[in-house]
Every structure is written in structure tokens, then in C-alpha cells.
């Protein structure tokens, strides 16, 4: 039976975000290139990138990307109300990059992020790390590193929240807002 969480309905089997983060970091540790640059997709992926940079050994530069100007649903849904500035304080050209997002679903955000990255330069390699993979892909995109997998109906969105310095996952009814 679903139970009430602090941020909405929590279906049974929704993983603990902190545990998923630890699992994701475990998978990335040793596998990610020592000079890899971490790029979080706003907003959940950006929080995640900062946490991962602290959890992973070595010094990984962190950047943030807002894909609003590259989304494929602009024609239907218009521009998001709040667009953040993409901040990549390093060269993309020739770099090894790990794109980081909270939830991997249709794959459209990742497509937009890859397109945007190429307007900054030609990376040597792009990997993808996600906290949660909920399936439902509409594009041929797969994550290199996955923290947890979860099955949730189409009518629900999986959302990452920050409570102080802790992460929590919750679900919300799907709105017309752009999907991850």
C-alpha cells in the first residue's frame, strides 16, 4: 500500500535517496576517469553533481547545465518560467564528461544536454550517471551508472527533493510540466 511521505504519495518500493546516492557513488568510484568533469542538469542533477564531487576520490571540476533552450517540447509547452544560466567553468573540447541527472525517464533531457554540450566544444567522451532509472525511454539513451531502478506508472513523476543536506525521493501526479 502507498504511504504518505513528507513530499507526497510514496509508493511502496521507492528507494531511499541517500542509499541510492551511495550506490551510485560506489559504481562510479574507480570507473570514472580521474580527470572527468561532472556536469549536473538543473535542478536535481546539479545538486547531485555537488554531492558526487565530494563523494568521489580526486578533484572533479563541477559544472551545471540548464537545457531549457534545447528542449524538444518548447513548441508545445513554451519556455520554462525560470531558466538558470549554464555554467561550465572548464573547457568542454577534448574533455571526459559525466552528465549527471536525478531521474532518467524518456531520455529527452539527456538528449538536450548532449546537444547543448556540443555547442561548447567536442568532448572526448560523455558518460551518464543517474540516481534513479525509471524506464520508459523514448530515445535510444542508456545510463553508464545507475543508483537504483524503480517502476512507476506514467501518471506519476519521480521527484528529487532536498531536506537540509539530505536527499529524498517522492512522486507527484504528472503535470504538463516538461518531463525528465
Amino acid at each position, binding site marked *: 500500500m502507498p504511504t504518505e511521505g513528507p513530499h507526497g504519495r510514496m509508493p511502496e518500493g521507492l528507494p531511499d535517496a541517500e542509499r541510492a546516492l551511495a550506490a551510485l557513488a560506489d559504481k562510479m568510484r574507480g570507473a570514472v576517469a580521474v580527470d572527468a568533469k561532472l556536469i549536473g542538469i538543473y535542478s536535481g542533477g546539479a545538486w547531485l553533481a555537488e554531492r558526487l564531487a565530494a563523494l568521489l576520490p580526486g578533484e572533479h571540476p563541477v559544472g551545471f547545465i540548464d537545457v531549457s*533552450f534545447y528542449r524538444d517540447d518548447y*513548441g508545445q509547452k*513554451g*519556455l520554462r518560467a525560470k531558466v*538558470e*544560466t*549554464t555554467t561550465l567553468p572548464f573547457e568542454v573540447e577534448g574533455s571526459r564528461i559525466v552528465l549527471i541527472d536525478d531521474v532518467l525517464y524518456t531520455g529527452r533531457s539527456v538528449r538536450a544536454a548532449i*546537444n547543448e554540450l556540443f*555547442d*561548447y566544444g567536442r568532448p572526448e567522451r560523455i558518460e551518464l550517471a543517474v540516481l534513479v532509472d525509471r524506464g520508459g525511454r523514448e530515445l535510444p539513451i542508456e545510463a553508464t551508472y545507475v543508483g537504483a531502478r524503480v517502476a512507476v506508472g506514467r501518471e506519476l513523476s519521480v521527484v528529487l527533493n532536498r531536506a537540509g543536506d539530505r536527499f529524498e525521493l517522492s512522486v507527484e501526479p504528472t503535470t504538463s510540466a516538461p518531463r525528465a
Partner: protein
Amino acid sequence: MLSKGPNPQLNAGGELQHLLTLEGMPAAIIERILDTAVPFVSIAERDVKKVPLLRGKTVFNLFFENSTRTRTTFEIAAKRLSADVININVGVSSTSKGETLLDTIDNLVAMNADMFVVRHGQSGAPHLIAQHLSARQRSHIHVINAGDGRHAHPTQGLLDLFTIRHYKHEFSRLSVAIVGDVLHSRVARSLIHGLTTMGVPEIRAIGPHTLLPTAVEKMGVRVFHDMKTGLAGCDVIVMLRLQTERMKGSLLPSAGEFFKHYGLTADKLALAKPDAIVMHPGPMNRGVEIDSAVADGKHSVILPQVTFGIAVRMAVMSILAGG
């Protein structure tokens, strides 16, 4: 009195349908445009200065009045959004063959226009076009006013607000002085509406009686006729352009006398706050509105205004085209 409809630039849901004027525009919409312009500033700093938002859209730059400067900034903005841009200098094409303004519009609609950027010598021309499009059930086509007569120049007003916010961080404690030919200035009207909406407590208009509209106080500005009292303690000084044909005649005796009274020199600037910024919508008349030492000096933010102008126009276009 008759009851007139709401401003046609907002749709039934209160969202921006066209950009025609800053008069009556909700602060939330102005804020959204300014916020959206911020990431566009950084796009311009990349090697690839283009995003794909308006790919496949056709923007017509419809200039019934010559202005290479303004047309170019709109053209750059649209191209950086990946739109196809067609520049039409109507002053030398269809209307001289007897075609009416709305005939021209209907023709361009038939060419599947998505957006019109309109500059016209007559106040209200962009409103007329917007009303015509909605009467023809063509409301999906957006109109941006790039300056109409003396009425409005809303993208200039927005870029001025962006510039002020960029350097002063907020609006609620500012004193802004607008100097020169307010009477003929659409830039001044749009800026005054914008500043009022954003909560600027002190807006001053400085100029001789011949260049200030009779009822200018009704827009919420304090009127000054001399620079000494008018500039005292100001945070922002906006110098307006004086058109060449108005420098000598019944409005003013000469450019030289105007400069003597109202030209911005280092001594006059010293009356403002030490960190005051100096703005000008361009193109400047050096030695008429502004002394070169000030125009090129450390208080001047005239060139950043141009850079920000492109970002603000990209923000407006992408918000409008996203419907």
C-alpha cells in the same frame, strides 16, 4: 465614457501575446523577461552563440522607419535563436507603391510569418497590426513593437531596466534622472512606465519646457529644468537622444546652447552619486547630449546596454514564440 478592452498585448490568460508597450504590464512579466535574459547574456559569450529555440520560425523585421541599429539588434537576437530572419525596409518598398500597412501585413501572413518586429513612425501602428491579426484569427502570430512614433519602445525600456538591475541589483531605493527630449521620446515613455512598475521611488525628467510634455507629472515623474538640482544624488542618469532636426528651430535655438544647459559633462555628473551609472539609448550625439569624456568614462554603461539589448530581445522572442 465608453468601456475599452484590456491591453491587447496580453491574452485572456494574462500571458504575453505581443509586446506593444510597458504601460500596464504586470511586474511579474517584466521580471520574467529580465530573468530569462540572464542566461542569454552568457550564450553570447560562447563560441557557438546560437540556441535552437526558434528553429523553423520566420521573423519579419518590418521597418517603416530607418534604423540600422535597432534592426540589427533584433536580427542578431532572432538569428541567435535560430529563426529565419527577413528584413523588410518598407519605407522604400510597398507603401511607396500605394499598398496599405495592413495589406503589407496580410501579404507577409500569407508567407507564413511567425513574428513581426515592427518599427513605425506613427504611434499605435503595432497595436493596429496586433488588432488586425486577431480580427483575422491570426493570433498565433506575435508582434513586437520596435518603436512606434513617440509612443513606446518596450524592448529598449526592458534593456534599460536590465542594465539598471545589473549594476544596481534592485529598484526600490533608486533615483533615476531622464534628461533631454522627453516630449518626442518613446524611449523615455517606456522607461518611465517600466521604472514605475518596478517600484523606483524617484523618477526625474530634466529638460526645457519645449521638450517636456505638458502632463508629464501625471506619469509619476518630478520635473526639473536645471541639471544642478535635477542630477543631485541620482543613482542612474539616462541621456536621451536629440534628433538633429530638433536641434535648431522653435524647440531649441542651437545644439550648443542645449549642450551648455543639459549636456552631460564631468562637472554635472559629479553632482550625482559617486557610483552613478550613465546610460544612453544610442546613437549618441557627442558634444550635444553628452561629453565624450563622460560617454567613454568609468560611469558609462552605454556599450553594455547594447550587449544586454540583444539578450533581452532574445528573451522576449523566446517567451512570445513559446506561447
